């Protein structure tokens, strides 16, 4: 690790004002290991862990709001989340291991937009709104490719708004080594609107599987996806799974998510 300065922000305004050329530090589960391996060398870290206004989970009966510094374990165990969108609590409870879940945050995960992260699939499938220090961004506009988002320099995610859905579930096939999503599929139904979001597989990050959405919109059941195959083009292939295997798993996981929703 190279040397850097550390500032514990006291508020969102303080954080945004003081970050400069530096980086925000949320749970640190990607940033800190990368720094330790000397693959990243930010000269300045603005630590968000003491910013009270970035914490908390609430629900107004139609929209679930999760503040950006909520830990995965907090989302997983929240009675508010379990009542509003139980599948989202289940997703959070399946991220990493207990140590990761007690440190990692939803804001950090989504801001990083790791192509194998779980939350981006939930944001996209549920049509979440990403709230920042300066604006509101629709999930459809937010994820812009591998580790790339709509966030501007220094822009800080403050909260996520998840409109309730009639049905929502996430099914994940884990990479055997890292236990990240090799393929994760989130399925959400809201009236006649069905959205299917796929993480882990795409070489350009999370994406919607519109063929499956059309099938499920007319018949929301696992069997509606029988015979439907995802295209392998544009998917990742590596030692853990070829693009062809990932394409196959998208179908299997979509069915499992639809069955569980």
């Amino acid at each position: 690790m190279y040397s850097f300065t550390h500032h514990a922000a006291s508020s969102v305004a303080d954080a945004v004002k003081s970050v400069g050329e530096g980086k925000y530090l949320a749970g640190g589960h990607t940033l800190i290991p990368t720094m330790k391996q000397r693959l990243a060398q930010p000269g300045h870290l603005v630590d968000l862990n003491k910013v009270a206004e970035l914490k908390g989970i609430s629900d107004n009966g139609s929209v679930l709001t999760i503040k950006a510094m909520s830990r995965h374990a907090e989302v997983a165990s929240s009675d508010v989340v379990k009542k509003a969108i139980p599948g989202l609590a289940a997703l959070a409870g399946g991220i990493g291991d207990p140590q990761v879940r007690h440190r990692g945050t939803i804001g950090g995960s989504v801001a990083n937009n790791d192509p194998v992260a779980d939350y981006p699939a939930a944001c996209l499938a549920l049509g979440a709104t990403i709230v920042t220090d300066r604006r509101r961004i629709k999930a459809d506009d937010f994820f812009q490719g591998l580790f790339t988002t709509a966030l501007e320099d220094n822009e800080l995610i403050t909260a996520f708004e998840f409109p309730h859905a009639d049905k929502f579930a996430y099914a994940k096939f884990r990479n055997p080594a890292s236990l990240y999503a090799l393929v994760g599929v989130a399925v959400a139904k809201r009236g006649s609107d069905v959205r299917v979001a796929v993480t882990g597989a795409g070489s350009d990050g999370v994406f919607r599987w519109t063929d499956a959405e059309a099938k499920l919109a007319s018949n929301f059941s696992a069997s509606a996806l029988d015979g439907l195959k995802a295209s392998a083009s544009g998917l990742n292939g590596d030692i853990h799974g070829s693009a062809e295997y990932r394409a196959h798993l998208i179908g299997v996981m979509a069915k499992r998510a639809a069955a569980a929703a």
Partner: protein
Amino acid sequence: MTATGIGAPVRRKEDFRFITGAGRYVDDINRPGQAYAYFLRSPHAHATINKIDTTEAMKSPGVVAIFTGADIEADKVGGLICGWAIFNKDGSPMRAGAHPALAIGKVRYVGDHVAVVIADTLAQARDAAEKIDVDYGVLSAAADVTTARKAGAPTIHDVAPDNQVYDWHLGDKAATDAAFAAAKHVTKLDIVNNRLVPNPMEPRAAVGEYDIGSDSLTLYTTSQNPHVARLVLSAFIGLAPENKFRVIAPDVGGGFGSKIFIYAEETVCVWAARKVRRAVKWTSDRTEAFLSDAHGRDHVTHAELATDANGKITAVRVSTKANMGAYLSTFASSVPTYLYAPLLSGQYNIPAIYAEVEAVYTNTAPVDAYRGAGRPEATYVIERLVEVAARELNVDPAEFRRRNFVTAFPHQTPVIMAYDAGDYDASLTKAQQMHDVAGFAARKAASASKGKLRGLGYSAYIEACGIAPSAAVGSLGAGVGLWESAEVRVNPIGTVEILTGSHSHGQGHETTFAQLVSGRLGIPIENVSIVHGDTDKVQMGMGTYGSRSGAVGMSAIVKALDKIEAKAKKVAAHVLEAAEGDIEFKNGKFTVKGTDKEADFGSIALQAYIAHKFNGQELEPGLKESAFWDPTNFTFPAGVHICELEIDPATGVVTIDRWTAVDDFGNVINPMIVEGQVHGGIAQGVGQALFEGAVYDSDGQLITASFMDYTMPRAQDLPSYNVGMTITACPSNPLGIKGCGEAGAIASPPAVINAITNALGHENITMPATPEKVWKAAQASAQKMAAE
């Protein structure tokens, strides 16, 4: 059996310090004024080093020194060695390329050592290393044995222009070929034994120190055999004479073979300590461990098995290419030869066996012994062969094995080994009963009703451990003898220190060795301490690997205890005023035959030291004895493992549903510790079968250089094991014990693959059987079934 003697499941004495964080590992050792070493490693698999410019790096803050291979060479310090000479078919010696501790002129794998920076802090050493300018001339690389042996492949060592280290064979080729010519049926298999990264929990580390006053070196190192490390560093590499060289291997957090070897890093640390007159410390990070710990396995094999009209095996023929990596590690040459081919007879009566092994240099990390070392590779070959042969002959695989078992002992195989004792049918029968093999068909049907494929696979393994008679291994090319030493020091009040040449790095010697002494001398186990891992305290010893510490190390203790008892009886005769021949020793008490006179062990120990009751000129005072034990044979643990698993054909995920292991380890010192060894061994074997695999790309870059890509087995991947034992005492050591440390890792991979192929209905799967491979294989099965 006493509560703390042989056979008792005594809780491990060492665990309190391990689980409370009170262990003392090499990285816990800090010496006054120590500096830190950082190794600049090659980013290229194969390149010439045209120039190393350290000018800017030397200006970096905190730098004490920067050394390259030229500095070590100028100091007349030698390179690393391979201590086992193998000879080619034509009698010529193997072709061992030079192995400098820091590269000279050329790097040969990613992670090879280019230079070392010594600095006040580790961060400063790393900062400086980034400023070293190395001018590489990148060469094409050969990252696998097939590429390395192709015409026109890059030459890795000039001494071996075609990258062939040796071309070795064992067995009677003519007799084997004749048996194949006469065979009723021949089973053929192409087998890959996947390359593994050892990954002990504690990475390697070293602290080198030089004392000006005594002109002597001290090396703290993560070693399984500190005396051998001292011997090699002293006599072969030439750092200092042995009497001026102390090697300490304190608590060591696992080794699995990878800490047997003498590596560049500890060599450089202790050498540099004298150069810079400061202690020099290095602790591997996990990435360095992946890149530079000696890897395991990596065989490509074609194997054939011949049977006659009665379904009896008549011959086995094996051709193996073994990847040795870029340099020959300390014992690398022995692993695919004498630790491999002599086990190809398995538990079976096979009249003719012929094996040929070609060892090959590649641009990858060196490959050496890893838990089982050659024996897992052999067991995988023979247990896959017999399973497939049985299936091809439509014979139940268990019955096919039973039909071919060795049943009379001693049994001389055609490949060196003389099996001394065993009852293979007893293990198989007991395993089948414990496993409820009879209920398998019903379980398979239940799985099928859920859309799952269920399979059952056997592995009837034998291994040779407790290595081994020194003269015998010497005749096979070993550079050292493989005896063990022990010293028993009885203190004046009857407490005991055992100084052993064995080294415990997870095996529990502090408990099992103390059990032996507690039971034998009738003293509380708390009164026995085990001292190991320090060449200044313990006389020359050979260390721990190859499941040898029980059979060889404890036998040496028994021999020393025999001497202690004989001496104590002489003392007791004086104290109890009786003839020496009338003294009996039992349950910690000396008694005089036919009288009620008695004295306990502690009081006799005291009398031995105060020496008032006997003539010190006729009987030496004191109570301390030492012994060296050289075994008369290997020991031959054997057993049967049965793996039963379920495959989800939709994803290819394999779930191991039940596992039965019945092992014959001879007499057992501590059944709890033995069971733990079996559990850990199975986990490692399942890791090889389903998860682990070191992958280099064609440029020689290690793709699996972290746990993000290298899959370790996890608790959730493993079932609760059903472990049982049968016992035939080993006749070649006084305790009748065999080795248990590697058996699980040797037995389990073929059991898993035999179960998967049983479920799939075809043999086309390789290790590690990842979900994608199994999914593809399951599709092939479905197509095959549809066609039928």
